[in-house]
């Protein structure tokens, strides 16, 4: 069993055990179709869902609230007001009285039971199709009591996946730059938190300007850039061991780092004599290869999920555009071209889209396009939106948004553009990066 400690300077190691009890999924011949949530339709009405407090004390109520908040924030579900619930004292062991839930038009119901056994939390939950009167899903999780939030996120992911057919994204973390202080005197620190804004904590001390942190595919390692008075360097930082190391010196500024999907390489920009080019380093051999060699700005590299290509930002045609090349630097080809300036391309984890920042006149947008550049769609518009990062299911983006004179804040939008909202974290933040699903 692997033990993971994050920030071992302050926190103890905990064990998190997943026990899957696969229960019978009863498939009858339904008189009406099984409930299903379609993520692709632009006009979908959120599914009314009831998430009553899990039985078993305060933590049962807390878990149900985190689940309801996750589902509500996805924009695909409408958790009903617990004050309207008629049936109380549900437990996972007994079938609900479906008529009571039909009365308030709950189409789905998530209930559960929390028990403590041997100092460990055991959480049983069930997902019910209310109008068919059938169980759709049942699982059991065991964890240390401090990890109750991760149990709630894993239940949220299971419910989301069962009802949408897509993988969830709730058991994830966000690494970002937390900002404080007045503009022009801003203090920037690397920070990390759960995707719902809980458990925020700092990773660096604010003595340098930190920028653009990114996760590795194992979600335990991040890379970021630190800017000081006389140097700009890229670092690798292991969240498990708190070990930090520089990527090396390159006789110029080093910035814009990003891991390859297998975690074995880092692509980044190196500036020399004012010119920025993309390089890639093999992390085991520590050999670096230069991939672009033209006088244009070449930056913001992002690998395709199969690792064979790199999408990047270049102004070799006169202004910022998006290019795709082989991971060996061959065959660079422009894919953007819709008028306006393009920046920060990011390949989605499913390979379907490339998200980007676009500037048109006085406005900024987060947008997506297909990897061949077709089907470009702008999802947001504001004074300054920038730096999208993908949730691991490739359906939701987080980015930072600024109003004139105001601090940057974290926002999210889904790929239909319909579900746009501020992220729950209350502070100022920029450069978010979304982790893979935690193991």
């Amino acid at each position, binding site marked *: 069993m692997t033990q993971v400690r994050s920030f071992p300077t302050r926190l*103890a190691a905990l064990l998190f055990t997943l026990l899957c009890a696969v229960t019978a999924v009863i498939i009858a011949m339904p008189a009406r179709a099984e409930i299903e949530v379609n993520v692709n339709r632009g006009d979908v009405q959120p599914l009314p869902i009831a998430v009553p407090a899990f039985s078993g004390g305060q933590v049962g109520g807390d878990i149900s609230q985190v689940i309801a908040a996750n589902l509500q924030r996805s924009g695909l579900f409408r958790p009903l007001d617990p004050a309207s619930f008629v049936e109380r004292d549900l437990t996972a062991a007994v079938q609900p009285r479906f008529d009571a839930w039909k009365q308030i038009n709950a189409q789905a119901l998530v209930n559960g039971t929390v028990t403590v056994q041997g100092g460990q939390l055991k959480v049983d939950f069930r997902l019910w199709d209310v109008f068919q009167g059938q169980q759709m899903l049942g699982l059991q999780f065991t964890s240390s009591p401090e990890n109750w939030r991760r149990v709630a996120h894993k239940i949220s992911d299971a419910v989301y996946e069962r009802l949408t057919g897509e993988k969830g994204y709730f058991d994830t973390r966000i690494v970002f730059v937390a900002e404080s202080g007045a503009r022009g005197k801003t203090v920037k620190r690397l920070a990390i938190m759960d995707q719902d804004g809980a*458990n925020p904590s700092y990773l660096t001390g604010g003595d340098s300007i930190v920028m653009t942190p990114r996760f590795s595919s194992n979600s335990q390692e991040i890379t970021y850039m630190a800017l000081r008075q006389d140097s700009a360097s890229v670092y690798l930082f292991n969240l498990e061991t708190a070990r930090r190391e520089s990527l090396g010196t390159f006789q110029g500024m080093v910035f814009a780092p990003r891991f390859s999907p297998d975690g074995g390489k880092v692509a980044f920009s190196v*500036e020399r004599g004012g010119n920025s080019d993309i390089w890639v380093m093999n992390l085991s051999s520590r050999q670096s290869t230069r991939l672009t060699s033209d006088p244009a700005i070449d930056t913001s590299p992002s690998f395709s999920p199969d690792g064979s290509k790199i999408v990047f930002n270049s102004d070799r045609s006169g202004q910022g555009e998006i290019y795709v090349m082989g991971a060996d630097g061959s065959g660079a080809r422009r894919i953007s071209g819709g008028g306006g300036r393009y920046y*920060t391309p990011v390949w989605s984890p499913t390979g379907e889209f490339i998200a980007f920042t676009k*500037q048109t006149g006085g406005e900024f947008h987060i947008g997506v396009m297909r990897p061949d550049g077709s089907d470009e769609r702008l999802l947001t518009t504001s004074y300054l939106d920038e730096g999208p990062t993908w949730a691991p299911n490739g359906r939701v983006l987080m980015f930072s948004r600024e109003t004139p004179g105001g601090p940057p804040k974290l926002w999210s939008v889904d790929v239909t553009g319909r579900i746009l909202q501020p992220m729950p974290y209350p502070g100022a933040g920029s450069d978010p990066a979304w982790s893979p699903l935690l*193991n």
Partner: protein
Amino acid sequence: MVLSVNSSTVFRLALVGLCAVSMAACAKKPKMATQVPSAPPTQTQPSIPQPPDRGPSVPPVNTTALPGSAQDFIVNVGDRVYFDTDSYDIRADAQPLLDAQSGWLRRYGAVQVRIEGNADERGTREYNLALGARRANAVRDYLVSHGVSADRIATISFGKEQPIDPGSGEDSWQKNRNGHTAIVSGAR
């Protein structure tokens, strides 16, 4: 796994398989911003930014600054030039100031400088970092072509991270598109 429906109201749950997978723990203690933020990187004392549309002018000579000092450089020569949007060309109105810088640097040969390139907020972070680097290098190239030895001049870019004017609007942005010559060592 498909089972037939039992008409009884109590479901029988059958354990079909048990998989125990041990998971890594990620415990996080919330530590929020109750700490006093440490001081941001300090800059050399900024000069009063000159409006970019003013033509070349002779600044008033400050007779109290010691010749060859950083103060002398900042006040009597000028340590900041400005750029157009998305551009790193040395503008015509910047050239006299850079001529004065190169003259001063040739006169005080022990001085080492660092050119800091800056960009306004109307762009993304990484691209603006690269743009600032171009601006810093453009200033450096100008000074080198006017007789200052290249090994006396370092460059860095702060992108849009350290605006000297926190406002929004072209009046602020034009001040933030600049190249700042900072004295690193060797001044009196």
